[in-house]
């Protein structure tokens, strides 16, 4: 089983890295870029042996909320890729 977790800074939180990248793109000669937000993506591979997909997904959600993202500043999305 594979899963992909995307963690993005919350809209209300300043993303200095995104701002810097936007400016870099603009000075790179592409000022049409209005905004950039930068987050993390994690590709997770699970051992299928004896894995209960439902339970695993629930467990992954827990881990996303507890460890992989900080809900004070970030939102996550979890996609199961079978």
């Amino acid at each position: 089983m594979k899963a992909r977790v995307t963690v993005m800074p919350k809209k209300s939180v300043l993303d200095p890295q995104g701002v810097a990248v936007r400016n870099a793109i603009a000075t790179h000669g592409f000022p049409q870029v209005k905004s950039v937000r930068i987050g993390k993506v994690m590709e997770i591979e699970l051992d299928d042996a004896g894995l209960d997909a439902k339970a695993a997904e629930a467990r992954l959600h827990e881990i996303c909320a507890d460890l992989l993202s900080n809900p004070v500043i970030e939102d996550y999305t979890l996609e199961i890729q079978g």
Partner: protein
Amino acid sequence: MKAAVIRFPGSNCDQDCHYALQRVFGVPTDYVWHKESSLKGYDLVVLPGGFSYGDYLRCGAIARFSPIMKAVVDYAENGGLLIGICNGFQVLTESRLLPGALVRNRDLHFICEHRFLRVGACDNPFLNQAKPGQVLNIPIAHGEGNYTADEATLEELNANRQILVRYCDAQGVVSEAANPNGSLNNIAGICNAKRNVFGLMPHPERACEARLGSEDGNVIFQSILNHLGVRAVA
């Protein structure tokens, strides 16, 4: 009294904190390994600076789940004095022992330099020997010290006098120009509502000897000793 300095894999200011407590202030101090599970018998617990678990993912995020942190949370909930410096502050916010979060510095660079801090509230165990408005010269060294919190949290921090130190200039003026990293309201350090947990980005343990440029960090350690009714030996 007895102090504990927690050692996570990747802690790197553990020895500096140990030195300040033990040699500069004469406080018997133990290192406590992250795989331990008890903090019995300590009057002060320090989460030192460094890069716990490499600071991979987010600073302090993985440390939060190390075995010792259960004991740290219990210790704090029972009113024990807990101070988190730099990475220690990040561990405290990740653990929700302190509100808010610490994100990348505004200019995306790691910054190491001496900075001025303006003391906010003094009615707490960590700054009772300082005066409100006093200016301290204490170095910072971090890449992710940009404090952020939502409106409501900020209001609460202000209302409860939990903002203990803010970045300022040499004259004590808190301004955007004196803000090294983009922190909300120039916040450099806060305590919890119960006033027994203090987190700050600057390194008071690096400002305990005149020969290293500043002794202004001493007031924090002296305040702690004073609060515990201990007289500094050194």
